[in-house]
C-alpha cells in the first residue's frame, strides 16, 4: 500500500454501524421491563417500545446488520494492509466484549429455537450477555466522551 490508510466503506458504513449499534443496545436493554415503567414508551412515536416482541425482532435485525458489518470488516481486515476503521472496537477489550456477546447471544438464539440447555447454564448466559452489553455500552460512552485517543487505551 502506498499513501495513507484506507477506510473501506467510508461514512455510510460508519453511520450504518452506529444506527445498528444504537438499535441493538436499545432493543437489548429494552428487554428489561424498564421502557414503559420509565415513560420511554409514552414518548411520541415510541409506543411500539412497550411491545417486547417488537423489541425482540428489532434486536435480531439490528444484530444481523452488525454481524454482516463485522464479517465484512474481518474478511477485509486481513488482506488490506493498513486500514483505518472509523467504526467498531479499537482495543482488545471491545473485541472481548463482542466475543462474549456473540457466544452468549448464540446460545440465547438457539434457546429461542427450542434447543434445550440446562436452566442453570442459561442463568449464567443471560447475566453474561447483559453484563457484557452494559460494559460495551459504558465503554462506548467513555469513548464518545473521551475521544479516540481514550479509546485506544480501553
Amino acid at each position: 500500500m502506498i499513501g495513507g490508510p484506507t477506510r473501506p466503506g467510508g461514512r455510510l458504513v460508519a453511520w450504518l454501524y452506529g444506527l445498528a449499534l444504537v438499535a441493538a443496545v436499545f432493543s437489548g436493554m429494552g428487554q428489561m421491563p424498564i421502557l414503559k415503567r420509565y415513560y420511554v414508551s409514552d414518548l411520541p412515536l415510541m409506543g411500539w417500545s412497550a411491545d417486547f416482541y417488537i423489541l425482540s425482532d428489532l434486536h435480531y435485525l439490528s444484530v444481523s446488520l452488525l454481524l454482516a458489518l463485522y464479517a465484512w470488516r474481518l474478511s477485509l481486515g486481513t488482506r488490506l494492509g493498513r486500514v483505518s476503521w472509523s467504526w467498531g472496537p479499537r482495543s482488545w477489550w471491545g473485541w472481548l466484549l463482542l466475543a462474549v456477546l456473540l457466544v452468549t447471544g448464540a446460545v440465547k438464539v438457539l434457546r429461542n429455537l427450542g434447543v434445550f440447555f440446562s436452566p442453570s447454564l442459561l442463568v449464567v448466559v443471560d447475566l453474561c450477555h447483559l453484563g457484557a452489553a452494559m460494559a460495551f455500552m459504558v465503554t462506548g460512552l467513555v469513548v464518545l466522551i473521551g475521544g479516540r485517543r481514550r479509546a485506544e487505551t480501553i
Partner: protein
Amino acid sequence: MSQGISRRSFLKGSAAAAAGLAASRAPLPQAAQAASGRELCTLLDLSKCVGCEECVDACREQWQATVPDPVKPIPKPFPERVPIQDWSGRKDVQDRLTPYNFLYLEHLDFEYKGESRELHIPRRCMHCLNPPCTNLCPFGAGRVEANGVVHIDPDICLGGAKCKKVCPWHIPQRQSGVGIYLDLMPSFAGNGTMFKCHRCLPLVEKGEQPRCVEVCPEGVQSIGPRAEMVARAVALAKEMARKDGAPAGAYRDYIYGLEENGGTGTLYVSPIPFTVVSKAIDQEHRRLAQEASQGKGRNQGAGGRRRVTGQRGRPHMHRVGDSMASAENLSLALVVAPLAGVAAGFLKLFGGRGSSGGDEGGSL
C-alpha cells in the same frame, strides 16, 4: 400434524448441525442437549370433570405456604404508576390465578345445540414447549426443565412481570414485597416475584405425580411422555367429535394445547368444540368484568366459594399462534448476515474495482 419439514424443525436442525460441527472442534458444555421427547405432558379429559375443586384444594395445601408473605410496608415503587400487587391478604381467593393460587376451575354454564350444558375447566400454566415467558426473561429467572416443566426461580425473579405480558394467557402472577429485589433497589427496579404453577416439580423429580393429577377422584388428568399423551388426546378428540356429530377431520376443534403457542405440555380434550367453549369463557369473563364495574365487588361462585370478579388472572381459550415464530424466522437472518458480509468483503477484494483496497480517506 404436518409430516413435512417445518420451518422450525429446519432451523432447529440447522442449529443442531451447527452445534455438531462446533462440537467436532471444541467440546460443548455438557449441559447443552437437544430436546428429545422427554417432556412430560398432562392430558385433561373435560368430559370427566365435575367441578369438585379437589385439585385446587390439593394444590393450595401443597404450595401456598411456599409463597412468602411480603415485608410490610411494601416499598413504594418509583414512579408512582407502578402498581403494588399484594395478594397476601386475599389468600382465600381460589377462583382465579393469584400468587398464592396456581390453579383454579373455570365453571361454565352455556347453551349448546339448544341444550343447557355445564363444563368445568382446570386452568393453570400450559407449560409451553418453547415458552416465551422463559425465553424472553432477561435474567434467566424463567426455567424450562428437561421434563418439560416451565417454572420461575423465585431467587432470581425481580417481579418485572414481563413473563406475564408475553405469555399468551398472562398466567404468572406478581406478589410485591417479596424476593431479591428488596436487597437491590426496591423502589427503582423490580416489584416483587412472579409465581405460577410449576407442575409440582419437586414431587415430579422424585417420581411422584403432580398433586392435581393425583387427587382427582374422577381421573380427569393423566400425565406421561408428550408423544403418548398426544396420541391419546387425538384418539379421545376423534371419539368426542364423532359423538358430537362432527366430521372426522374436525377433531382438532375438540383439543386445546396441541398446537397453541407452538405446542404445550397441557392438552385439553372437550366434548364440546373449543370454538364454543372459548366464547362461553369470554362471555363469563365479560359478565364478571361488568359486575366489577358496577361495583358489586364480590359475589358467590360455584360451590358457595367466594368469587372475585374481574377478567384478570382468568386465561382465555382462544386459538394461539406461535409467539416465538418471528424469532425463529429471524434466526435465519442471523445466519445469513455474516455470510453476506464475508461475500461482500471477498467481492471487494477480488472483484474489479475493489481490488485496489477500498476507498481512500473515508469516501465511499
